[in-house]
């Protein structure tokens, strides 16, 4: 009989060792899913075994989009419901994402990287470090060039800030150079990458940053 007295020592610590976990958050429509679609191509080229967890606010649209995109085995994409609150599921109570990521670790023994996509949120969104090792925040130029100046916790605290849709800058009256300069300024020089996830421009730099931050050390 298996009893409490003869169990092995309990696992402790804040995060078990498995695949590296990278969060990608940001406002609705900033291009999180598009970034992941492009990243999956780069990661596949580098033979990095990857899985994705999405946290759609409603339905599983982002998960379905990634499954149908052809850049990843559809079985490696899980959708976790956000319970009407995209903040909670990645920060205050990340347990449902933790068990989903644990499940992926058990299913795919070769897994090196699990990307956890937040539901569309606002500038106050941040990832719990109980859930992820490192995280990206995605904003876009069409959301306004004043976003970095607003100094939201997502913009300030993320490990990498991605400014997406740079091709739209001239069409929405945004001075891209100034926006990027202000982004670097409020982040005290920590990394900022400007991308166009529709064309794939600069997505390789994001893949490089992920590899450098969470894969090289493993």
């Amino acid at each position, binding site marked *: 009989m*298996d*009893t*409490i007295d003869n169990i092995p020592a309990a696992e402790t610590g804040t*995060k078990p060792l498995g695949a590296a976990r990278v969060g990608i958050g940001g406002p609705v429509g900033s291009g999180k899913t598009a970034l992941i679609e492009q990243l999956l191509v780069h990661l596949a080229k580098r033979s990095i075994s990857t899985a994705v967890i999405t946290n759609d606010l*409603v*339905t599983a649209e982002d998960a379905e989009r990634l499954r149908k995109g052809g850049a990843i085995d559809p079985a490696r994409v899980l959708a976790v419901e956000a319970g*009407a609150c995209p903040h909670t*599921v990645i920060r205050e*109570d990340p347990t449902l994402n933790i068990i989903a990521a644990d499940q992926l670790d058990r299913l795919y023994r070769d897994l090196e990287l699990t990307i956890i996509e937040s539901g569309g949120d606002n500038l106050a969104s941040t990832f719990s470090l109980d859930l992820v090792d490192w995280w990206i925040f995605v904003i876009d130029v069409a959301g306004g060039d004043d976003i970095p100046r607003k100094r939201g916790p997502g913009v300030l605290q993320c490990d990498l800030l991605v400014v997406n849709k740079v091709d739209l800058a001239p069409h929405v009256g945004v001075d891209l150079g100034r926006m990027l300069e202000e982004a670097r300024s409020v982040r005290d020089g920590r990394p900022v990458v400007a991308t166009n996830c529709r064309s794939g421009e600069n997505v390789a730099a994001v893949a490089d940053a992920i590899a450098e931050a969470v894969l090289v050390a493993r």
Partner: protein
Amino acid sequence: MNEDNAATILTALQHADSNFPSGSFAFSQGLEGLASLTGKRPGTDEITNFVREQIVHRWASSDRVALAHAYRAGDDLDRVAEIDEELDLSTFCETLREGSRRNGQALLATHVRFGTPGAASYRQRIDRDTATGTLPVVHALLWRRLGLAEEACVAMSGYGLVSSSLTAAVRLNFVGALTAQSMMPPLLSLVATYAGEPVAEDAEICGFNPFGEIAAMNQAGLALRLFSN
């Protein structure tokens, strides 16, 4: 109040708190399906009746009984797993069944990281498909090992049902946050009534709440869903 009693109450407050990471925020227990089932946004009476039925016809006769039996099984994890499976098999509605498992396993994940005795061992059983990890059984397993009495565990379980249901009602914007709090006392009073009735040794797990289960099944078919069930 002596220090030990105060410490016990504070432990219960910590672990029954909706801020405790357990995954419960993502489950509406079918409440999200209620509006489309009745054709109108539910108000305080409809929500109160819905939660009341959950308490009387599901929690009191099913979850509470499973929790008490699992608590009394103590360190005999084979027996705990039997009760776990029985509760799982007796839950007819798939999304409620899966919800209880996922919620239980989410809570277990937190306690595995804490190193709570029994948590890692029971998760290994779930990984090996020799246990299911339903929420009430996981409650019994973990809370007993935190030194809480069976009666306290039952009360905390009932509180969790009421609290998470009304939180879901607020997030669905069926009622306001203040209104939700005003709805709590009579529902908690009902929980207290059942919590004060000891579960008989031969009590069977026998939940039957067709309206709530139909609402949960209806929720599973919604094109737009905010909650897991």
